[in-house]
Structures are given as structure tokens and as C-alpha cells.
């Protein structure tokens, strides 16, 4: 029963490929897009149709997981990925394939005009197949987007945890972005390794770039401070913005660490701790800048 309509669809697809292709392209070109050239679109549509026809010719048009659909799936996966990276919206990506429905239905109607019962069954199965392919395309699109997000996340976490040496024995760790558990781990490892490498006595954690400090972030900061202390380095937290200081007090967050309003104060304290003094140069002449 399921076999017969399938073969009909495959026959239709292989017999009137050019016809369907022309209709499909016409529908797609009704809403022209500058991101995709006309020739590129034509090649994509044509190869989708040929692959679809070949997949259906095996007689199992209902199941897109079948081996016969592998070439088509690969092709769709590729197209979805390219579209995801080129900034196409989900709707645009889905509409691209779903707009194949209208030309296919039109052809079915033309071929099976005399047999309405058959026609509806045929349209049903063709519709299901194209829907399934459309959903598959969306899945690929989504996956491509997620991959981009994951890659960006790792890049951000790598970029945003630099440890800089300010002076002999003084390190600074300018934190940018929200601190979650995973980032705290990276920050902690970076800081501790740098403490060993630079033989640092004091580490200044600057949180100017941290947008919010809630209890969880505070806990993460304290963990970092505790770990640095176990390595024999003292920590100073600096760069607490006014609003953040207010939020912290309202939330009842206590840091119990030496904290300074800005990095320069923290640096001055660190220098003092190490017994270094910053003095004005002798013979101050007005023309001299420093």
C-alpha cells in the first residue's frame, strides 16, 4: 500500500524534474536574495531534486533515515550549514525547502487529476516527506549555530583570562565577563600556573569587567583567592564598581578579602607590601613630562 504511492512520486520526480525545478526556482526567485547568486541557487535546487529522485526510486520515500537518503541528507546538511554561517534566518532556511511543496503538488494534481482518491494519498505522502526533510534541515541549521556558539565560548574564555605581570612579584588578572564555574576553573588554573612561573607574592584580581557579582560569583572569586593563598600568594580584589558594591551589600555577599576600588590603589598597596616606594624624580623641571 505504502509502496505504490512512493513509486508514483519517484516516477513523477524523475519524469518531470525540469518542470518542477523551473516552478521551484520561479517561486524562490520571487523573493530574491543578494547573499546567494542565481546560479548557485539553481545548482543547489537541481542537485537536491536529482538526489531526491534517486532516493525515492528505491521505493522507501517515507523514511529519510534510510541509506538511500544519505546523499540527499549530506547535501541538505551542507546547505543548512552554509546558510547558518551566512546569517540566513531559520525561516528563510526552512522556506527554501518547503517551497518545493507547491510545485510538486501542482504536478501531482496535473498527473492525477482523474483519480482524486489517489491524489490525496499521494499529496499526503509527498508532503510528509518534504516536511521531514525540512525538519532535518532545521536540525542541521540549529546544530551549525550551536557549534558556532560553542566555538565562540571557548574563544572568549581563552581570550578573557590573561594574567599579566605588573612588577617583579606582582601579577594582575583582569577579569572580563561573567564568572561561571567553568571559567573560574580556567581562571584559577591560569593564575596558579602564573604564580609559579613568575614567583609572584601578590596577585591583583581586577573585576572591572565583571558585569554582576552575585553570591555565586563571589564564591568563585573566594575560591580563586583561597587557592592562590595555598600557593603562598596574597590576593587583592580591585575594580568593584559602585553599583556592584551596592548590589553585593544588598545581597549580603561578603568577600572578606582586601579589596580596593581601582587597580591603581591595589597596585600601590602591592608595591608597599613588597617594600617598594614610588617617588617623584629629583630636579622636577616644569617642562619635563614625568
Amino acid at each position, binding site marked *: 500500500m505504502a509502496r505504490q504511492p512512493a513509486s508514483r512520486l519517484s516516477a513523477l520526480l524523475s519524469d518531470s524534474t525540469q518542470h518542477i525545478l523551473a516552478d521551484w526556482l520561479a517561486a524562490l526567485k520571487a523573493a530574491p536574495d543578494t547573499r546567494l547568486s542565481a546560479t548557485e541557487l539553481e545548482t543547489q535546487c537541481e542537485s537536491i531534486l536529482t538526489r531526491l529522485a534517486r532516493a525515492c526510486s528505491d521505493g522507501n520515500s517515507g523514511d529519510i533515515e534510510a541509506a538511500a537518503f544519505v546523499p540527499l541528507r549530506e547535501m541538505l546538511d551542507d546547505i543548512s550549514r552554509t546558510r547558518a554561517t551566512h546569517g540566513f534566518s531559520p525561516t528563510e532556511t526552512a522556506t527554501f525547502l518547503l517551497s518545493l511543496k507547491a510545485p510538486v503538488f501542482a504536478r501531482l494534481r496535473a498527473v492525477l487529476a482523474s483519480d482524486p482518491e489517489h491524489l490525496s494519498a499521494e499529496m499526503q505522502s509527498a508532503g510528509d516527506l518534504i516536511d521531514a526533510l525540512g525538519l532535518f534541515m532545521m536540525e542541521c541549521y540549529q546544530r551549525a549555530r550551536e557549534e558556532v556558539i560553542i566555538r565562540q565560548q571557548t574563544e572568549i574564555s581563552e581570550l578573557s583570562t590573561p594574567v599579566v605581570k605588573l612588577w617583579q612579584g606582582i601579577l594582575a588578572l583582569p577579569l572580563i565577563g561573567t564568572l561561571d564555574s567553568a571559567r573560574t*576553573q580556567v581562571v*584559577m*588554573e591560569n593564575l*596558579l*600556573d602564573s*604564580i*609559579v612561573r613568575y*614567583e*609572584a*607574592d601578590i596577585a591583583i584580581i581586577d573585576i572591572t569587567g565583571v558585569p554582576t557579582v552575585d553570591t555565586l560569583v563571589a564564591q568563585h572569586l573566594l*575560591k580563586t583567592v*583561597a*587557592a*592562590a*593563598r*595555598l*600557593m*603562598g*600568594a596574597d590576593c587583592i580584589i580591585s575594580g568593584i564598581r559602585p553599583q556592584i558594591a551596592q548590589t553585593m551589600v544588598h545581597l549580603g555577599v561578603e568577600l572578606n578579602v582586601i579589596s580596593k576600588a581601582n587597580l591603581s590603589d591595589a597596585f600601590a598597596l602591592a608595591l608597599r607590601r613588597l617594600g617598594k616606594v614610588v617617588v617623584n624624580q629629583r630636579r622636577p623641571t616644569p617642562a619635563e613630562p614625568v
Partner: protein
Amino acid sequence: MDRIPILKLGEALLVTIQVDMHDRLAMALEEDLTARIVDHSAKGVLIDISALEIVDSFIGRTLANIAMIAKVLDADTVVVGMRPAVAITLVELGLSLPGVRTALNAERGMAMIKSRIDDAAMIATDEDEGGP
């Protein structure tokens, strides 16, 4: 049974842990060290754990205990050379060893102990001379 050697350096005791610590060894160290602090009336204890790759909660607590015992016996404990991975583990275990002083390496730890001994000596001389 294995024992961890305790070396005397002036008024300080030096313990270098070179083997993997197991619980019994840690307890033995605690006992030995307590006895030695009293014997030598040591003013400082330096524990080098730079060779230690694994520190579990028991070892962490033993280190904290040693520091507290030493404090009761008027000696300063400095734990030196903790590896980054060990520090992270201890913090994750919730053991931040609040009573233990730490230093990056044996040299700095020794300097900390020495400065404390010197301070104590200075106060002692001041008192002998009738106060500062």
C-alpha cells in the same frame, strides 16, 4: 614502618615530603613532629609538599592540625611548594587551610620563619633591656 625525616635547621624544623602520603604516614608525621617541636623548642616548622601530587581531605586536615598543634607549642608552620592542581583540589574540597601559612617555595618559607624568629629574638632583647 616508613617515617618522614624531620631535619633540624637552627630553630626551625624542616620536613620534606617526598613520597605519596597515606593516612598512617600522615598520623605518624603529626606525632613525630609534635615530639620534635617540644624536644628542640623549635620556633618554626617548614613543610615542603612540592613533591606531593595528591592531597586528599585527610592529608589536608592533618596539615591544618599540625599547624594548630605547632601554634599551641609556639612554633610557626609554613607549608610551601603546593602545586596548582593540589591547591585547586583542596579549595574544591572546601579545605582552604585558614590557620596555615603558605609560601611559594622553600626559600621564601624559610625567610618567613627566619623573620619571625628574628622578631621574637628582638622582642626578647628589648625586654631584657627593660622594654622598648
